[in-house]
């Protein structure tokens, strides 16, 4: 089964190479992302699969907003339709590139590490994480315990990306006015389906965040689902005056909260002074509070990104 999915994976990537039309590129990218997510799941990493699925959807939305603008110009439709005439001279460059890539691939195949890898770190992490950090999910234990620096800087990069997108995105007025930001409000099917789906999304997001330390899921995945919930509401109820500045401010406060908790719990080593009877409670409280903070931060950040793209960049 894994082999089949991986073969499909390669095929879905190969389809993109000769494609010239922008919309098709984006749809193929979406399909590729979906297959990648399935492959991750089959490789025993549901956390990464969930993150990849959500991220694939978000990137596709951003690309589609670009493509919509691209096809808004009539000349682009015609340019996409025109096929370049075949010429032997035009084939030289791709042929050279193909030769280069094939050669590099043939070289690299020799460097694939063979079986019998050292599993020292894996054994250590898997046997010790329950006493060191707590919880049942080893992945959460690693990114909130052993490698909390990674999480800190990653969260910082997301904050920086949101701020950068907000400042780079072009706008004349402060809010999207005049043009309606979406057409979904007029569609009864969309309104009804969002009404049915959005409470489920909210419950699922909260479930993922609160149970991130014992099952697959966690702050990032739950935050992404929460952002999807807010986006659904935004699409249907046509909210034009979201104070996006305060959403970003809130995200920054959540980031400060994450940093403060990390400093107190991990860097100062408070765990050594906790009485033995309270250790389990203490560990769970740490994991859940970190997951909640990360989830809210990610939800705010992604909603700000989406809002910026849809309401400002789309015009």
């Amino acid at each position, binding site marked *: 089964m894994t082999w089949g999915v991986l073969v499909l994976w390669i095929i879905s990537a190969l389809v993109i190479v000769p494609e010239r039309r922008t919309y098709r590129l984006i749809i193929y990218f979406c399909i590729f992302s979906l297959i990648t997510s399935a492959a991750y799941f089959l490789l025993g990493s549901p956390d990464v699969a969930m993150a990849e699925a959500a991220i694939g959807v978000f990137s596709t939305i951003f690309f589609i907003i670009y493509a919509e603008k691209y096809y808004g110009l009539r000349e682009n439709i015609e340019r996409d339709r025109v096929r370049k005439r075949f010429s032997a001279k035009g084939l030289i460059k791709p042929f050279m590139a193909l030769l280069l890539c094939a050669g590099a691939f043939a070289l690299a195949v020799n460097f*694939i590490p063979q079986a019998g890898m050292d599993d020292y770190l894996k054994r250590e992490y898997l046997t010790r994480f329950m006493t060191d950090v707590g919880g*049942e999910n080893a992945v959460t234990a690693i990114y909130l315990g052993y490698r909390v620096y990674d999480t800190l800087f990653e969260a910082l990069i997301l904050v920086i990306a949101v701020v950068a997108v907000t400042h780079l*995105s072009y706008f004349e007025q402060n809010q999207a006015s005049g043009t309606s930001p979406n057409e979904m409000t007029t569609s009864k099917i969309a309104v009804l389906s969002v009404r049915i789906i959005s409470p489920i999304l909210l419950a699922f997001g909260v479930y993922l965040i609160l149970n991130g330390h014992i099952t697959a899921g966690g702050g990032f995945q739950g935050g992404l689902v929460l952002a999807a919930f807010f986006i659904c509401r935004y699409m249907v109820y046509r909210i034009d005056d979201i104070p996006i500045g305060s959403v970003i401010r809130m995200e920054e406060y959540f980031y400060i909260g994450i940093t403060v908790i990390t400093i107190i719990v991990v860097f100062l080593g408070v765990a050594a002074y906790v009485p033995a009877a309270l250790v389990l409670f203490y560990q769970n409280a740490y994991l859940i509070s970190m997951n909640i903070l990360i989830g809210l931060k990610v939800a705010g950040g992604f909603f700000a990104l989406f809002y910026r793209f849809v309401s400002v960049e789309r015009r």
Partner: protein
Amino acid sequence: MELFSLALFFISLFGLITSKNMVKTVIFLMFMQTSVIMFWLKMGIESTAAPAPPIISDPNMLKDIADIADPLPQALTLTAIIIGFSVTAIIVIMLNHLFRQYGTTEWQEIEEMENKKSC
């Protein structure tokens, strides 16, 4: 099975070299990242059968550690995915600006326009 991720890496390298459209370039950059992630996840698996996710609800599961996927690459790639997305968001917004200014996102056309300007 690591062959697949290597193959994707070099397919996307080929795409990066030959693509004329910037959207395609961005997509192939994301593909490259995906291939590296897949390679890492693959490295964490010892047995060829479908491995169990690293969620240990029962200490008896630790007896046969070869059947459990390695949690470390997963935690690292989770970080890498979010960072890759942040970078992509900034790239796409710059693409939008470029399109607004030049009306196209083909590498060669923008280069020609710039050459005309400087002449």
